């Protein structure tokens, strides 16, 4: 099994280069530290980060291998890209401050998008409500109470037409945070472009479409994993040929982390998902140099400052190395790990909410020092609800202060060369490779997910963390330390139920106006296409949405052909 041994070979190499003693540290410890500690001692008995990596009191050059700077570190914009994907990084272009939003009716979202465009934004980012994310229409009884709540509701093409009314799709790029039904939403977007007379070659944007992390963490799926992967494959192939500016998968660690993983687990599981998509593309016959540049990443930036920075640097190094060595990428673009990041929702507390501004600042700084390409900062009131406008403004200003006042972006990878950070980057890299080897033993990431292995690893970490918080070993300020008795209730955003009524009215209208015969035809054709592995379903989905078949009607074809999915027992 020559392919199988890649991870083991890699690990052996890493461990050979890293496992050497540190004589000067040991001498210092014996001569200076131990005698000192006899009188004062440490505050804690153990020092470790969120990944359970135990930390020494200090690091020096002997913690790195002798050729570290040349082999592992390199320079910005050069392989293995530890220091950044571009040679000039933020001196050339600052990270994109991409604040994720979406709410209420398509009209509400259309107004918001136009407002953002007027203020110079060209990168739109859309959040959908829960029914849309799970492929249910607004008039399904399950959707009651949820329409327009966590994002905008899209039930038919008509909604997409309203969202982008008066917006020229050849001049904007749109990021849609959608996974299980991604192909339907993309088809609707393309249908709007066609109506506007915009050729597909000019259509730019992203769908998240990272279905593996749905089974791992966010739990928004419709069919069994293989069915979703086949659909993603169809989308990849179709876009590579017809929609060259579309990024079809945003491989996401964010949700894995929020679901309770450690930083190392986020790193390892996200990259393992990414490798699976690369293998899928190669198996389909696509050239890795053609499609890998359209894969991007999405990481969490949490509160353990150095750990997050190390994670992002390690991610770049691993991706470049594996794409080159294991998957045969030749073009530089195919090796670059570009990523969006978001500060951690989990670290926010509803107690003393203004403290969240400080947490978000630390996390945002970590993302910038980690070399992110774009960033969303959470608002201080988000532990309880969607953010109010005032809170969103502070969150955006946080990024602007880092960007324009702090001087942090002026020098590339300013922490590079820090003994501790480099050691930690190395350590996280090694631990990620250990997971890759383990996942391979379980039978690959798809099997690991189907068996619940990954989910169990995360649940164990999450429980351990909660236990440590209960025991006071991990501190959340305002929660298990420095709490106050009389918390003033926070004024939070209320979402009206207007959206639900408006959407119900609209879908009734759409259904009364559309050609039912055409709807049935397109859905039947789609069903036939779905039943034949060798057929690419993308054109059939476009036909169906253009006939105003609804999101749920289209999704139900898949539910009929592929069936549903019940997750393995996790706890």
């Amino acid at each position: 099994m020559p392919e199988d041994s890649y991870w083991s070979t890699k690990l052996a190499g890493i461990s050979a280069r890293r496992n050497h003693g540190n004589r000067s540290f040991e001498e210092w410890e014996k001569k200076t530290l131990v005698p000192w500690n006899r009188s004062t001692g440490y505050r804690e008995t153990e020092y470790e980060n969120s990944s359970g990596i135990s930390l020494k009191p200090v690091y020096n050059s002997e913690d790195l291998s002798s050729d570290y700077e040349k082999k592992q570190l390199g320079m910005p914009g050069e392989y293995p890209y530890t220091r950044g994907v571009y040679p000039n990084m933020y001196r050339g272009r600052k990270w994109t401050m991409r604040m994720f939003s979406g709410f209420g009716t398509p009209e509400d979202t259309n107004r918001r998008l136009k407002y953002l465009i007027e203020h110079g934004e060209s990168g739109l980012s859309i959040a959908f409500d829960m029914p849309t994310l799970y492929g249910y229409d607004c008039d399904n009884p399950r959707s009651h109470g949820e329409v327009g709540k966590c994002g905008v509701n899209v039930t038919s093409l008509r909604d997409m037409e309203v969202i982008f009314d008066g917006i020229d799709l050849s001049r904007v790029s749109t990021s849609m945070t959608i996974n299980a039904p991604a192909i339907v939403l993309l088809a609707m977007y393309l249908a709007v472009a066609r109506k506007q007379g915009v050729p597909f070659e000019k259509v730019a944007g992203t769908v998240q479409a990272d279905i593996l992390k749905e089974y791992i963490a966010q739990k928004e799926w419709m069919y069994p994993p293989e069915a979703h992967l086949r659909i993603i494959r169809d989308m990849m192939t179709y876009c590579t040929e017809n929609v060259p500016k579309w990024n079809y998968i945003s491989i996401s660690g964010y949700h894995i982390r929020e679901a309770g993983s450690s930083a190392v687990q986020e790193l390892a599981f996200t990259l393992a998902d990414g490798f699976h998509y690369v293998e899928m593309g190669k198996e389909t016959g696509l050239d890795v140099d053609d499609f890998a540049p359209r894969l991007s990443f999405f990481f969490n930036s949490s509160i353990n400052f150095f750990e997050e920075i190390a994670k992002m640097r390690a991610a770049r190094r691993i991706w470049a190395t594996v794409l080159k060595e294991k998957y045969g990428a030749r073009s530089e673009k195919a090796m670059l790990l570009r990523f969006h990041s978001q500060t951690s929702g989990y670290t926010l507390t509803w107690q003393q909410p203004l403290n969240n501004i400080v947490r978000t600042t630390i996390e945002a700084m970590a993302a910038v020092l980690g070399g992110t390409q774009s960033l969303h900062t959470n608002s201080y009131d988000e532990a309880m609800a969607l953010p109010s406008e005032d809170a969103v403004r502070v969150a955006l200003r946080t990024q602007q202060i880092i960007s324009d006042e702090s001087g942090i972006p002026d020098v590339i990878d300013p922490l590079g060369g820090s003994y501790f950070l480099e050691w930690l980057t190395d350590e996280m890299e090694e631990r990620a490779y250990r997971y890759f080897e383990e996942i391979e033993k379980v039978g690959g990431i798809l099997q690991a997910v189907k068996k619940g292995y990954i989910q169990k690893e995360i649940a164990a970490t999450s429980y351990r963390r909660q236990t440590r918080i209960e025991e006071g070993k991990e501190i959340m300020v305002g929660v298990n330390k420095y709490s106050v008795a009389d918390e003033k209730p926070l004024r939070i955003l209320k979402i009206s139920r207007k959206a639900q009524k408006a959407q119900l009215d609209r879908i009734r209208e759409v259904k009364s106006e559309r050609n039912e015969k055409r709807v049935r035809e397109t859905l039947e054709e789609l069903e036939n296409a779905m039943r034949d592995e060798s057929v690419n379903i993308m054109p059939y989905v476009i036909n169906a949405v253009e006939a105003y078949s609804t999101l749920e009607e289209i999704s139900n074809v898949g539910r009929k052909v592929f069936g549903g999915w019940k997750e393995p027992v996790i706890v």
Partner: protein
Amino acid sequence: MAVGKSQSLFRDKPVKVLLAKPGIDGHDRGMFVLARAFRDAGMDVLYAGLLPTPEEVVDTAVNEDVDVIALSLLNGAHLVVFKKVADLMRSRGIDDIAIVGGGTIPEPDRPKLEKIGVSGNFGPGTPLSVIIEHVTERAAQARKKKMGE
């Protein structure tokens, strides 16, 4: 802290609790933490899986003869969805199963939920011991009703 078995009420049959996330919501981190914590506390724990309908939740609770249904939602739909569960219980005349809630539940919503019979309504950061104590208390009430007290 095996409170689930400590009281004589639960000596033969420990507290039985059904964890459920009805409605459309995949935030299950808290559920999994609670499942382990309840189990460590000696309770018998069931998980309703993802996206059960309120009907499915009530059916499971009845079929499994649980003491408590523990509902969790982090998507803002708790007022609508928890109420559906509570209404179903009432319409079927079930009063020997307690309902407790949790999730991202803003303070002003808590009395509204209490009123329809959903107690607890714990927000983020609540110590596990507080939740376990409350569930045990509600389970004791439910168990006494089951035993016709």
